[in-house]
């Protein structure tokens, strides 16, 4: 299924899910699962969920890197040309941005433990864990795609609505398969069409795409599924998730048409034409954003009515998915500080310079790595002003965590010529003369500082 902006809803998803499950099991094997239980609301001494998430995502990213080149990893993940491995990695990054799904996973592991003790040692342990991992990513992909869809269309969309689209898309697939094989399923096809069986149904030949699928067919298909397939259809299950939909053929028809319209449109789009383009690559929109903020501050707002949109109701929320509404946006922070421009590179004594060069060489980096990497960073840049008290390795670690090790925006001076990427965290820690945990801690503190003033940046 394709909808505007969505990336994780096509056939490739099955492989993405399996790859993430496989790599997650690798990441959590051994000591991994008991460590997940160490935390709690009351501070039981274990690592905090955020630290666990960081460890988990690093381990999964490593495992994904090792899977590169496998046929599963290289398989197409969607029609934009993204591979299964690329989608898996980007969803892993999304997990960091949406930690509530990780918290949900930890809660599921904790409740399994409360019910069944050390479930990770028993037979079928992998299956139990894999199921929880699947649930986490299934929820996350719909959240991410619902947001992608809202951004693409400028209209509200919810994970529940995405789930409903997918149910309808699956229904269409099933109906199309029955139509194609109508001789074998004559009674069921007749029931879907709402008339007595009698030869080749013309509808079966005329339905060329989901846009040609009628809402009544979907409703009758679901209604009669119990009789023909032995289990109730999605509109007629006890869960009542889609129960109201069976009385709303107009809504079903509109959603089927939306899927069909976009499928037709996207089939004609050039694969190479990404949604971002050059302007997106260069993040030029930031100029517009800063201008919009400036003009808003300069304008006298007296007497202008606010045009704010209220949070939309989620009409597709099933009864069992109703949760508490999370609190709204945080309060306004203080204005960002005007910071002085720091000195570019501190003057080094010959002894210090020799030490730096020896250190770089011992890490298989060019001898003047620190000097040149530091000099290539613009002294007036926002990041450098914000992180002026941090060392170069900490700053590079910040970029590595936020943008990955290989972003094409990095100057050559920042890259390890051997890999073409930023130095590894291990190399950076050695350059800084600190341990990996210390570098991580300083990096995270630096990111927290950047994030704290982010709304106004």
């Amino acid at each position: 299924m394709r909808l505007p902006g969505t990336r994780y809803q096509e056939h490739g998803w099955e492989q993405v899910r399996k790859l993430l499950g496989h790599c997650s099991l690798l990441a959590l094997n051994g000591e991994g699962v008991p460590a997940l239980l160490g935390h709690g609301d009351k501070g039981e001494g274990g690592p905090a969920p955020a630290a666990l998430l960081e460890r988990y995502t690093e381990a999964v990213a490593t495992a994904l890197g090792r899977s590169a080149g496998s046929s599963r990893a290289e398989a197409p993940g969607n029609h934009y040309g993204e591979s299964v491995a690329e989608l898996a990695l980007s969803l892993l990054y999304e997990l960091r941005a949406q930690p509530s799904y990780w918290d949900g996973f930890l809660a599921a592991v904790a409740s399994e433990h409360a019910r069944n003790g050390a479930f990770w040692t028993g037979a079928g342990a992998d299956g139990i864990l894999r199921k929880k991992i699947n649930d986490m990513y299934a929820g996350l992909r719909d959240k991410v795609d619902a947001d992608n869809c809202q951004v693409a269309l400028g209209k509200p969309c919810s994970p529940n609505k995405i789930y409903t689209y997918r149910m309808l898309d699956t229904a269409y697939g099933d109906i199309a398969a029955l139509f194609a094989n109508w001789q074998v399923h004559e009674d069921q096809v007749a029931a879907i069409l709402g008339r007595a069986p009698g030869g080749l149904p013309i509808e079966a030949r005329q339905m060329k795409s989901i846009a040609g699928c009628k809402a009544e067919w979907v409703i009758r298909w679901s209604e009669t599924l119990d009789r023909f397939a032995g289990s109730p259809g999605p509109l007629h299950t006890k869960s009542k998730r889609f129960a109201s939909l069976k009385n709303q053929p107009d809504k079903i028809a509109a959603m089927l048409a939306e899927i069909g319209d976009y499928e037709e449109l996207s089939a004609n789009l050039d694969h190479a034409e990404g949604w971002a383009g050059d302007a997106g690559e260069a993040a030029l929109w930031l100029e517009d954003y800063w201008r919009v903020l400036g003009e808003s501050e300069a304008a006298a707002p007296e007497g202008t009515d606010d045009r704010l949109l209220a949070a939309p109701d989620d009409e597709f929320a099933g009864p069992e998915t109703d949760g508490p509404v999370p609190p709204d946006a945080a309060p306004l922070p203080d204005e960002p500080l005007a910071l002085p421009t720091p000195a570019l590179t501190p003057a080094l004594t010959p002894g210090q310079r020799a030490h730096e060069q020896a250190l770089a060489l011992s890490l298989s980096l060019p001898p003047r790595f620190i000097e040149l990497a530091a000099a290539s960073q613009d002294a007036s840049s926002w990041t450098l002003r914000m992180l002026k008290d941090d060392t170069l390795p900490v700053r590079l670690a910040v970029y590595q965590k936020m943008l990955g090790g290989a972003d094409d925006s990095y100057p050559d001076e920042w890259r390890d010529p051997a890999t073409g990427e930023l130095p590894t965290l291990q190399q950076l820690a050695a350059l800084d003369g600190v341990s990996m945990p210390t570098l991580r801690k300083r990096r995270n503190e630096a990111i927290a500082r950047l994030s704290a003033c982010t709304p106004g940046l």
Partner: protein
Amino acid sequence: MNEKSKTGLADRRLRERLLLGRAVPGDHLRLADATLLGALDGSRPLTANERAALMHSPLTLRRLRVLSDAVRKQAGAAAIWMRSGGLLRAAASSTTLDRLVTDDGCWALHFVPDGDGWSVILALAAEAPFAPGLMRQQPMLRVLDGAGATVLQGRLDIDGECEDGWPFDTPPARHFQLHGGMFAVETAAP
């Protein structure tokens, strides 16, 4: 982009990631497209509350990015368009001329009898790649005949049309025949 800075792009991307990669529980589109577009083209600056809503909603910021990139793309297309030309077709010359279309299909000229004379209407095709940009910018446009005389000058109305009386004594078909059998639409120098 700052040419002197090798890390300008990396900085920009880092700031973008910081802005958009935040989880804001309960986030939703806080501003309508019309509000965002008004802020982008400067016609209606955001109020203080709208500004705060935008700054604290990664989802609304992402929508702003989509709109900003789209406007930039359209502005680029509009900037490229300078001129469209067309020919008087043989068939058109033998009968009463009611319509001419530029070779790129982006413009049509309609001729409507009006009392003793004619009206001439310039219409922009909605699907022209530069249509959104032109509609926003509303530049002064001019239609010229093959001899370089002005047939029509003005700005497009909200329907993408511009209308005036036929300025010559000879009827449209005969006039174009006598003046090179060609016409062109272009932006008039301000």
